């Protein structure tokens, strides 16, 4: 009998632990909630900007605004919005992912990129090299990356948005140095032959390089490199700026249909416009993104050296064309990594 009681009390105890912890998430009484669906490296950025905007909005309208943040790989987040994640604003790594939301779910107009200044891209970045302190392999530019014995860490462009910028920057260099697309393809083929690990995303690659100690050079966003150099591994890494790079333009947009449904259109629009204000632009620079505002950029000039940059629209014919040519099945990336 004792055992049955023991058994039952154990079961009851389990049930109680479990039921004691139910109860939904707290809702917000009055005021509005904005859901911002973003990609991985913007956490620090929006952690700084959201409270500032909430104060600004309260002053301006007297209304409270709170935020729900969702972070993940850019493509995965784009898909989530398409599949019904009710984002009021999308702040993703690639305009391509927002294009897909417009094309597949019709949640915002196809010409969304004209809604805000600077291609709806309030902050930019570029691709740089992160090397170990003292630059033991003497890496100065792209051509050093294809030397035998140099290990390059870059994520898989088929699964990571940031990795696509890396690939295109390398391609741009290869084309400029060799003078042709064939030379460019040869260059990236050699480059990826030097890659020992293809992580699925930018943050995974940084961890591989910084925490696991693998590789001689990490190809990454400038903001990630600065974060790693200044915060994660203070004094253990340094940044090398290549002779040519690419202007990475993360894009932001109001997901109009969702915002309409939630009645958050005004706040969502104001939120994204707020990103262009000097205060937000300063926060952007502090989060190691390149600000668009000329005055703020001037203040942070030492942090962001001038680099000649290609752009996705001018040099690659926009994301749709680049995605198809380089990263879709049977594209350039598949070709250069296929076994011969």
């Amino acid at each position, binding site marked *: 009998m004792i055992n049955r009681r023991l058994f039952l009390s154990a079961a009851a105890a389990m049930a109680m632990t479990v039921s004691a912890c139910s109860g939904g998430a707290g809702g917000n009484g009055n005021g509005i909630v904005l859901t911002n669906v973003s990609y991985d490296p913007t956490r620090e950025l929006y952690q700084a900007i959201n409270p500032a905007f909430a104060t600004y909005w309260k002053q301006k309208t007297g209304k409270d605004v709170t935020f729900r943040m969702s972070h993940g790989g850019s493509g995965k987040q784009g898909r989530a919005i398409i599949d019904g994640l009710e984002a009021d604003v999308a702040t993703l790594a690639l305009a391509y992912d927002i294009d897909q939301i417009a094309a597949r779910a019709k949640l915002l107009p196809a010409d969304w990129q004209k809604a805000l200044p600077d291609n709806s891209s309030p902050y930019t970045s570029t691709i740089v090299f992160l090397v170990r302190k003292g630059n033991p392999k003497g890496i100065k530019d792209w051509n050093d990356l294809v030397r035998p014995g140099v290990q390059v860490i870059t994520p898989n462009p088929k699964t990571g948005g940031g990795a696509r910028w890396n690939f295109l920057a390398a391609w741009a260099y290869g084309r400029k140095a060799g003078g042709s697309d064939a030379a460019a393809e040869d260059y990236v083929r050699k480059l990826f032959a030097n890659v*020992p690990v293809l992580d699925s995303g930018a943050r995974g690659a940084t961890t591989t390089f910084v925490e696991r100690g693998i590789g001689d050079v990490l190809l990454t966003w400038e903001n990630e490199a600065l974060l790693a150099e200044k915060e994660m591994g203070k004094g253990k890494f340094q940044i090398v700026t290549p002779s040519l790079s690419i202007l990475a333009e993360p894009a932001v947009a109001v997901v109009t249909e969702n915002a309409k449904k939630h009645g958050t259109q005004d706040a969502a629009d104001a939120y994204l416009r707020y990103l262009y204000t000097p205060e937000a632009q300063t926060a952007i620079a502090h989060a190691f993104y390149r600000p668009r505002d000329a005055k703020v950029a001037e203040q942070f000039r030492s942090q962001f050296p001038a680099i000649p940059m290609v752009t996705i629209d001018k040099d690659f014919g926009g994301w749709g064309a680049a995605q198809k040519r380089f990263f879709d099945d049977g594209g350039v990336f598949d070709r250069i990594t296929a076994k011969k």
Partner: protein
Amino acid sequence: MSRTLSRAKSWRQPSVLPGFGLTFGVTLAWLTLIVLVPLASIFIRSAGMGWSEFVAVGFSDRALAAYRVSFGTAAAAGLVNAVSGLLVAWVLVRYAFPGKRVISALVDLPFALPTAVAGIALTALYAPTGWLGQFLEPLGLKVAFTPVGIVVALVFIGLPFVVRSVEPVLADLGRDVEEAAATLGATRLQTFRRVIVPAIAPALLTGFALAFARGVGEYGSVIFIAGNMPGKTEIAPLLIVTQLEQYAYAGATAIATVMMLASFLILLVINLIQAASRRRMGA
């Protein structure tokens, strides 16, 4: 068991026990709702793409290489687990040693630890700078970012399946058979081979099958330690993710369909072998 007495024309053989309708109904309903209908969506989605396109995606060189990696490493890990899982189960059931109960609880850890955490922890151990990696690297043994790393992760994921399948059977195995064998002059090894192994073989097979099946689909832990190089350490579930990144849902479901059919057939064959062996033993 004299069931032949009343072999009526009924679909199932009659039994005095009640509750077949209720329990079978609940089983079928829940199975349909949770497993069959959702999985059907995969088949239907991939069927929508046409046969040639299906083959182009589901059987591309890259996909074939990924299946080889996935099924190969899962089989290797399954074998490792069959041997070491049997050893662990044997020791836990047959021998007494201090701390046995805690260790027994530890075996289930891989079920509980999120797979991503397992992957990160294993990578931290086996990376060239890791606790174990730094000793293995000078010996020329590379684990992290090679197929061996995938096997290590899958061994971790699959171990409880084997131990927990074999353990109860081993515990229930009557000592009298072994004693009989011993009185007849069999050595311990002979007894093990001729008496014990045949008795636990079905359970061991189940354990292997479950560990294998789980390993084929595993993503979270493998992704950290694999290195993900196309053709070498790229697993099939990663290809599904790659297809999704291109917004190619149909392509993703094509690869998923191939994997699922293969796993299903392997599991079915193993369950049929088991049922047959049980019938033979029970007869």
